[in-house]
């Protein structure tokens, strides 16, 4: 720092993230990967939030836990993320760049330094308590971890339920804890942290349906909430994934979902839409049916809000393939059938006819609401809330609050699903980085490693450690016998046993033993490599041994746990696993992780709102940016939009942003630019561009790409568009209103879903329901006498947009549904434009004249066919770019170093486009902020001598990595290789080997296992 540091504002390179759900985790990882120290403050005893409770997730059907647990492990092992669990923020002072935050840790009564998470205490604790995690469907103990994969897996004692705390006797846990981790004197702790910015991601509460008893929750046992149903579906849940009714454990056949429970109800619950429940109900119905084909699901709904990317396809499949029944009708009350405990639902069907239908089980699709203490929480951080007790955020940056330096993300900001949460987690990281960029790297811990010992000339000296894991392993497996046996194996120079191998003191002991015995290869027979391998590999590195000379034998999960009733067999199998591990470790060779330099320059393709913001986000952090726009001017589609539905002025915002990019010293704007060539890999791309009007050629070297090529309005050929001047699109209507006002408009009709949600384009365009309402309200404001009719299929005013739908109705705008098969008819004769449609409620056909017929034309992707072929990028059938992973990597493209944002990814609002562009900057910064990228050593390599140039690897690699080089043989770029091993397995000439998984490194295990079998 300079001399006048005392007068200069302090910028701290540390950030606090409050919350531990997927949103918070993403923000933490992006920040920590970009040179910031992160403190995560999480209220529960484990991180994970809502997502860990889910079974599968829409629309991919991926297992939620499988997706989130690697991310949790990443957070847990990241040396620049400090997790504070059972923690809450007490007070905040200071200003952006330099906050002082006081944190209170609740007493855990278990010393996290000592506890290894072995779980013995939990097993033996006599006190059963309804499990919060399992939603009361099963029990946990008074000493517990939230769920099996909890992180940290340090147990915690629930004082309210502990027999010792309540009655003064028990202490069973203390007796059985071999780590001596129980601490009855724990009183919690308060400490202060200094951070530059604060990110709030505490999520939302779920609506409690017990407060409205007509739906029978808490009264009729076979009425469950959707979150209970997630647990019921989960293979690790209370019923092991068998769908049963809680009341009598019978298998239900007819299951009803009731939508909007606690949502869209300003009379008895919350007025907003919770945005996710239409989709999760669909998912639950599909998954339930997959579990048990006799299940016959019905979803009772008002509007199906499948507004996300490809969601309508998912719903269509649910209808057509899985035969899920969707019934547009709300349920007034759930009655129970005496004797059977079945549930009777009465509803008015599409013809208004009343039906009584009996179901075996009812699932309530409960929505989200702010936590009960939302006001106090906001007060602690000094941020303002809106009328609905969500944080007040500006429309052009949804992660900012009323207090500079304090940001929000995830569903806390407003209801949303996982991909949007992840996206916003990155977005908030991007915003934070822009604030703190000058302090980057000031507080992070850098790993200092001793030089690696050269072992090429050493004989093979293997050390084996067998773990008791408290009594987890030792209570079944004869650990001493396994240890003895290990000592007899070839090359083993040391074998020992530990109570807890992963405990810090054991790790230190291992270091000493490695030195003492000159060990150069290590085997740990303990638990799962998935969770523990990185820690042991770190230990090896810190002793100067190549970390790839390591192997684990999972004798806990694969022996003691799963053969606990056959201790002899478990011990025998443990020996075999150790034998296999020893055989393999002997065959391993040191691997070096290659470092490649990163060109700290970004290329942004597309100069709309998303591209502009992405460019600014990176440039403000000091990175150089080249912004390419194919048109003459910047701004994209947003230049045709006057205001947002909230009334924010889009035009002047866009102009301001354009002004900022064009004058930014770090940004070079190239208009009329066309990409013609592209090569390279993450950190090192080269793009060839023709820049008009002269079409001169430029070559740009850059480290990352951000795609922001946008989308356009569909040009209808339906409903007399183009044949009658009075028929216009919503954008044209807003322009019409801007120019001519609404004085002459007596009656206006709008038709929704034009060019969307049909056979040609099955997707929802997401923005047009709110666009119609925005224009309708505008007309009402200009001319309250205008009568407006909106013909819709499902009104998709998700989240807090529902307020505007309510406002529109209250202003007298009339809404009628229509079906795809039965669209409105539009006629133009004798000067009148008439629209004929059917009113579903009365079953009558109606006719209305219109001065203007506005068509809510959908959104179609920009033509990126050429671009995608040059950059080798995948697109959806409708031409939107396809992200690497729909749920967890919504901003990344499959090719590393390329990111996507805005409507190039899928239809979205301006605020959402901005959000994703900030996310793209954060993701890009995880690359740009590093001078070098470390590549995994587990990559494939070709032996050019053996290669027969057959091209099989070229064709089989899922990432198109192998190339035939100038020498005419296959070459694999390790910077691009993902290490899957497909090519190695396919190569007929056996010319390819996958590091760490070479054929003999695998087959030696087979041999070792089957030793003596013949």
């Amino acid at each position, binding site marked *: 720092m300079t001399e006048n540091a005392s007068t200069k504002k302090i910028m701290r390179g540390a950030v606090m993230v409050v919350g531990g759900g997927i949103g918070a985790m993403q923000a933490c990882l992006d920040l920590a990967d970009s040179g910031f120290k992160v403190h995560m403050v999480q209220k529960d005893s484990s991180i994970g939030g809502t997502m860990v409770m889910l079974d*599968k997730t829409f629309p*991919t*059907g*991926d*297992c*939620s*836990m*499988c997706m989130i647990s690697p991310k949790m492990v990443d957070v847990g092992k990241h040396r620049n993320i400090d997790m504070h669990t059972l923690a809450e923020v007490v007070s905040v002072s200071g200003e952006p760049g330099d906050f002082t935050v006081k944190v209170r840790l609740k007493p855990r009564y278990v010393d996290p330094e000592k506890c290894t998470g072995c779980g013995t205490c939990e097993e033996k604790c006599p006190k059963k308590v309804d499990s919060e995690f399992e939603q009361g469907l099963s029990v946990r103990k008074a000493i517990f971890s939230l769920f*099996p994969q909890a992180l940290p897996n340090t147990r915690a004692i629930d004082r309210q339920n502990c027999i010792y705390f309540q009655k003064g006797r028990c202490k069973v846990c203390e007796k059985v804890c071999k780590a001596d981790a129980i601490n009855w004197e724990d009183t919690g702790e308060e400490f202060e942290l200094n951070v530059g910015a604060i990110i709030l991601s505490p999520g939302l509460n779920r609506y409690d349906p017990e407060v409205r008893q007509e739906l029978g929750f808490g009264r009729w046992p076979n009425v469950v909430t959707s979150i209970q149903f997630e647990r019921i579906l*989960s*293979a*690790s849940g209370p019923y*092991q*994934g068998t769908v049963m009714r809680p009341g009598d454990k019978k298998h239900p056949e007819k299951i009803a979902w009731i939508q909007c429970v606690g949502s869209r109800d300003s009379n008895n619950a919350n007025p907003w839409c919770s945005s996710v429940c239409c989709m999760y109900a669909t998912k639950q119905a599909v998954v339930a049916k997959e579990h048990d084909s006799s299940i016959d699901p019905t979803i009772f709904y008002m509007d199906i809000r499948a507004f996300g990317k490809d969601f309508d396809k998912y719903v269509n499949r649910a209808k057509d393939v899985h035969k899920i029944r969707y019934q547009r009708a709300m349920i007034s009350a759930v009655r129970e059938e005496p004797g059977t405990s079945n549930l009777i639902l009465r509803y008015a069907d599409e013809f208004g006819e009343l039906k009584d239908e009996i179901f075996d089980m009812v699932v309530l699709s409960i929505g989200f609401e702010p936590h009960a203490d939302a006001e106090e929480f906001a007060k602690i951080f000094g941020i303002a809330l809106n009328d609905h007790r969500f944080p007040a955020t500006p429309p052009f940056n949804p992660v900012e609050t009323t207090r500079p330096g304090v940001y929000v993300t995830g569903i806390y900001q407003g209801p949303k699903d996982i991909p949007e949460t992840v996206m916003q987690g990155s977005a908030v990281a991007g915003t934070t980085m822009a604030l703190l960029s000058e302090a980057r790297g000031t507080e992070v811990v850098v790993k200092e490693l001793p030089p690696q010992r050269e072992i090429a000339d050493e004989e093979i000296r293997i050390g084996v450690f067998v773990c008791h894991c408290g009594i987890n392993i030792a209570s079944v497996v004869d650990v001493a016998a396994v240890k003895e046996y290990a000592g007899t194996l070839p090359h083993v120079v040391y074998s020992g046993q530990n109570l807890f191998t992963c405990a810090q003191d054991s790790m230190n002991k291992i270091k000493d033993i490695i030195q003492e015995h000159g060990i150069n290869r290590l085997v740990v027979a303990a638990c799962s*490599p998935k969770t523990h391998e990185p820690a042991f590999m770190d230990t090896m590195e810190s002793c100067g041994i190549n970390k790839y000379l390591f192997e684990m034998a*999972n004798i806990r999960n*694969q*022996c003691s*746990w*799963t*053969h*606990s*009733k*056959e201790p002899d*067999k*478990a011990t*025998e*199998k443990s020996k*075999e*696993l150790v034998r*296999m591990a020893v055989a393999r470790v002997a065959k391993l060779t040191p691997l070096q992780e290659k470092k490649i330099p990163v060109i700290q320059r970004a290329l942004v393709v597309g100069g709309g709102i998303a591209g502009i913001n992405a460019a600014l986000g990176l440039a403000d952090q000091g990175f150089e940016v080249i912004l390419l726009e194919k048109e003459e001017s910047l701004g994209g589609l947003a230049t045709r939009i006057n205001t947002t539905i909230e009334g924010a002025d889009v035009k002047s915002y866009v102009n301001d942003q354009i002004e900022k990019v064009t004058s930014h010293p770090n940004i070079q704007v190239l208009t009329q630019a066309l990409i013609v060539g592209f090569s390279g890999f993450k950190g090192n791309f080269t793009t060839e561009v023709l820049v008009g009007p002269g079409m001169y050629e430029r070559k740009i070297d850059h480290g990352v790409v951000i795609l922001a090529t946008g989308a356009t309005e569909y040009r209808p050929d339906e409903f007399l568009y183009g044949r009658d001047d009075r028929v216009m699109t919503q954008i044209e209507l807003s322009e019409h209103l801007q120019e001519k006002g609404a004085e002459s408009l007596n009656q206006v009709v709008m038709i929704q879903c034009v060019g969307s949600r049909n056979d040609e384009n099955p997707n929802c365009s997401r923005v047009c329901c709110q666009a119609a309402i925005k224009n309708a309200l505008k007309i009402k404001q200009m001319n309250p006498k205008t009568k407006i009719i909106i013909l819709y299929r499902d009104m998709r005013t998700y989240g807090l947009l529902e307020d505007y739908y309510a406002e529109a109705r209250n202003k007298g705008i009339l809404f009628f549904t229509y079906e795809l098969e039965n669209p409105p008819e539009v006629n133009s004769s004798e000067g009148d434009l008439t629209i004929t449609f059917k009113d579903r409620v009365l079953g009558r056909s109606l006719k209305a004249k219109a001065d203007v017929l506005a068509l809510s034309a959908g959104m179609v992707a920009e033509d990126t066919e050429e671009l995608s072929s040059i950059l080798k990028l995948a697109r959806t059938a409708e031409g939107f770019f396809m992200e690497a992973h729909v749920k967890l990597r919504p901003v990344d493209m499959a090719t590393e170093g390329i990111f996507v944002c805005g409507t190039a990814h899928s239809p979205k609002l301006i605020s959402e486009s901005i959000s994703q562009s900030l996310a793209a900057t954060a993701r890009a910064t995880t690359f740009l902020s590093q001078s070098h990228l470390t590549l995994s050593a*587990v990559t494939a390599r070709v032996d050019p001598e053996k290669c027969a140039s057959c091209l099989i690897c070229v064709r*089989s690699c*899922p*990432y198109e990595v192998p190339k035939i080089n100038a020498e005419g043989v296959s070459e694999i770029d390790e910077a691009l290789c*993902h*290490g*899957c*091993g*497909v090519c*190695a*397995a*396919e190569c007929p000439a056996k010319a390819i080997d*996958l590091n760490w*998984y070479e*054929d003999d490194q*695998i*087959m030696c*295990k*087979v*041999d070792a*296992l*089957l030793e003596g*079998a*013949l």
Partner: protein
Amino acid sequence: MRLQYPANVKIIRLPCTGKIDLIHILRAFEKGADGVYVVGCLEGGCHYIGGNLRARKRVEQARKILDLTGIGGERVQMYNLSASDGPLFVQYAIEMNEKILELGPNPIKLKKDAAA
């Protein structure tokens, strides 16, 4: 969950089932294994896009070869499940085990025994 499955099932870890090679499978039989099964992610859910589909093909190949050599193709199986689905893993383990018990020991072993 700690569900129980037969102890004679032993697992060899690979980065992706796409890495499984015909020779790996055949080697196991050559060395006297009675059965081999490959457990991959659900189809469509491969972390590396399509590795499990390739694995399935190789398992098919292995079956053919084993049939030809008289060891019996049924001794190789491919299963797909999601990583969180413990009960299904157990179900498959039991299923495979029962099948192998029914088929009896690897004929190579029998030949060896007979020769001895």
